[in-house]
């Protein structure tokens, strides 16, 4: 694969750049790494003509921690906690992706209880992640109130996690061959309570924001991502589905106990910001549906099939596993030498990295404010881009 490196100098004076009738001058502006839209520390170099965006050049790397390299010096079990620090809003799903890959490679079996709890936790976290996304989208578009509503609902789900796992953000819960701990005795009751609380809240979201004419004006027909381009850019998750591609690993290659649950995969019509918004709102409802179906039938059994002290032996070779996180497909490639207790090489294909580059295509020709809307509906988590 060849990469053409384009520096700013190549773009400052593009040959034959059409002169505007007003004889305007193009200029660069740095959005980030310290900027309210950066949501962490993402830097976008934007080439502007007045308010019109000519080009967006993402410059990732401000939160690069070298997680993949660090993993080469940690044991199979220890690398799980690193994944919490990637997409911190899908920490459990990241845990699961790596754990599942290791399980597949090492041939570790799990039991239905483990898989059901994993599925429940993953869906609760998808819900939590989307609720927060909704709040942040409101704030990005200038309505501050949804931000606090989003956080309020996020807290409620966070309390379920806290009770069982003991952590709220970096949870390190799903382990190769099991779970760190069994669920709290109150888990089922509390989850049902939370679902009953959340259902009307999502309808409230619709009345507060979705139906607002300003919001629709800001999102409809903005940043249209055609299905072919979405696939070519490697977009996954709600971004891909909003472009009309019904590709959801939970349905296409069911893992966990998703095959037992009855749920729909929402798909957009044309891939504009509004479609991405609606797909996520609908995904919240579908997540609630999945949890409702599974919460009463958690089978009995131990919460781990492998002792935590036991050495995990991953045979030599390259192993791949993937999972649908809240933002798309997280792919894990493990190269193992069959001897050492650690991966020879760990490669993570994170959904946000691929989704980020959609900004470069979507924002061109729109206004500064549209970059915000586009970036917000791509729902980027920056530490997952940089790893």
């Amino acid at each position: 694969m060849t990469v053409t490196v384009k520096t700013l100098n190549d773009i400052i004076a593009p040959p034959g750049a059409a002169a505007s009738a007003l004889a305007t001058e193009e200029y660069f502006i740095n959005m980030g790494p310290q900027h309210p839209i950066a949501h962490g520390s993402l830097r976008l170099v934007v080439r502007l003509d007045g308010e019109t965006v000519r080009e967006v050049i993402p410059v990732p790397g401000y939160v690069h921690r070298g997680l993949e390299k660090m993993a080469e010096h940690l044991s199979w079990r220890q690398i799980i906690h690193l994944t919490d620090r990637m997409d911190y809003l899908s920490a459990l799903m990241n845990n699961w992706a790596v754990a599942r890959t290791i399980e597949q490679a090492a041939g570790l079996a799990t039991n239905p209880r483990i898989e059901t709890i994993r599925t429940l936790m993953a869906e609760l976290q998808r819900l939590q992640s989307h609720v927060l996304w909704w709040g942040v989208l409101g704030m990005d578009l200038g309505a501050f109130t949804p931000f606090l509503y989003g956080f309020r609902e996020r807290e409620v789900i966070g309390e379920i996690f806290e009770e069982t796992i003991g952590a709220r953000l970096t949870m390190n819960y799903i382990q190769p061959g099991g779970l760190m701990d069994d669920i709290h005795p109150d888990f089922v009751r509390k989850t049902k309570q939370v679902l009953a609380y959340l259902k009307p809240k999502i309808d409230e979201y619709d009345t507060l924001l979705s139906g607002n004419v300003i919001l629709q004006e800001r999102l409809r027909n903005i940043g249209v991502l055609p299905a072919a381009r979405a696939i070519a850019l490697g977009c996954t998750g709600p971004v891909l589905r909003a472009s009309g591609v019904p590709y959801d690993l939970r349905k296409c290659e069911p893992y966990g106990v998703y095959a037992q649950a009855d749920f729909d995969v929402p798909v957009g019509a044309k891939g504009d910001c509004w479609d991405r918004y609606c797909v996520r709102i609908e995904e919240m409802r579908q997540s609630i549906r999945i949890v409702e179906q599974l919460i009463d039938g958690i089978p009995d059994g131990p919460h781990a099939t492998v002792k935590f002290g036991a050495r995990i032996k991953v045979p030599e070779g390259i192993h791949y596993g993937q999972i649908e996180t809240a933002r798309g497909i997280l792919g894990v490639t493990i190269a193992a030498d069959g001897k050492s207790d650690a991966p020879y090489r760990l490669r993570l294909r994170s959904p946000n990295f691929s989704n980020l580059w959609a900004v470069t295509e979507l924002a061109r020709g729109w206004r500064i404010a549209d970059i915000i809307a586009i970036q917000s509906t791509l729902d980027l988590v920056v530490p997952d881009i940089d790893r």
Partner: protein
Amino acid sequence: MAGAAAPFALFAAAQAAPAWPVKTVAARAAEALPDHPWTAVLYMALAFAGLGALVAVLGMGLIYLERKIAARFQCRLGPMRVGPHGIFQTVADTFKLLFKEDIVPARADKTLHLLAPFLALSSTALMLGVIPYSPILQISDVNIGVLYIAAVSGLGVMGILLGGWSSYNKWSLIGAMRGAAQIISYEVSATLALLVVVMFAGTLSLSGIVASQAEGWWIWRAPVVGGIAFLIYLTASTAEINRTPFDIPEGESELTAGFHTEYSGLRFAFFFLAEFINMFVAAALTATLFLGGWMPFHIGGANAFNAVMDLVPPGVWFLGKTAFVVFVIMWFRWTFPRLRVDQLMRLEWKLLLPIGFANLALGALAVLYDLYFFPGA
């Protein structure tokens, strides 16, 4: 022309037998000047001190109010720690801002950078001087009050423009340019809405306009036309004072802080204060022009009802109406997302302006043919 005479006749009637004798501070000073010059000076000093105090009290009060109202909308408590229910929070914040380092960017145009916040604040403070708070409480009743308001409120854009321009920061510059474009555009609609009331009242003086509403507020007394003008004025003045959904010059999530990105400490506080005083002025003017100002809720001819309404003092009526409009403007802010800059322009030039013109024409017809409640009263 009968049509032209009608409004002036109305004005004459309102002046001939005022239910509430209007006495401004300036008038008192002028009265005292020949015999007691020092009393006149005292009156003027009182007026200046009163204006200064008003700016400070309004700033503190409105900021506290906004925080508490925002908190209500967002299911939280808001400031609670400094004093009972956090009433001293704004005082504490003022001191914090006073003691903050005042940073001027190295390559900024220093004079303009330092001047801008004062321009922004002084233009709003100038408007406070002509607002009729109550029949006995108005500093000066300029006979061209509406024109004065339209002119002085336009001055506020200078503060934003200079502040953004002189900061030597691209974000500030974008914010300033947006602000200038927005305020100048929306002034057109705001003025068109003002003109409707001026036509009905037949005077440009603000206390004259209040007096002309003794038979009923213009929002309902001028059927439909008054209501439309009220909505246009409320929208346009929300845009003029850069409040959500029209806060694009500040556009926090887009432009970090827009035109005041490079301001800190006291100078930032001045911009902040100007925003809140502006909100009060916009609300007070909306109340004065469309909701009768200090005039109690009267229905022409229903004298018994009107007498009951008169039991509430005019100052309370004024404050109540202004507070209501302030609340509506805050309500906008904590509910709506922000418009995009081109959508903002489209709303003004393609929607509000044609409606404003049509409304003005309709209003002219209504005045010409006495098609409103209690004409000639």
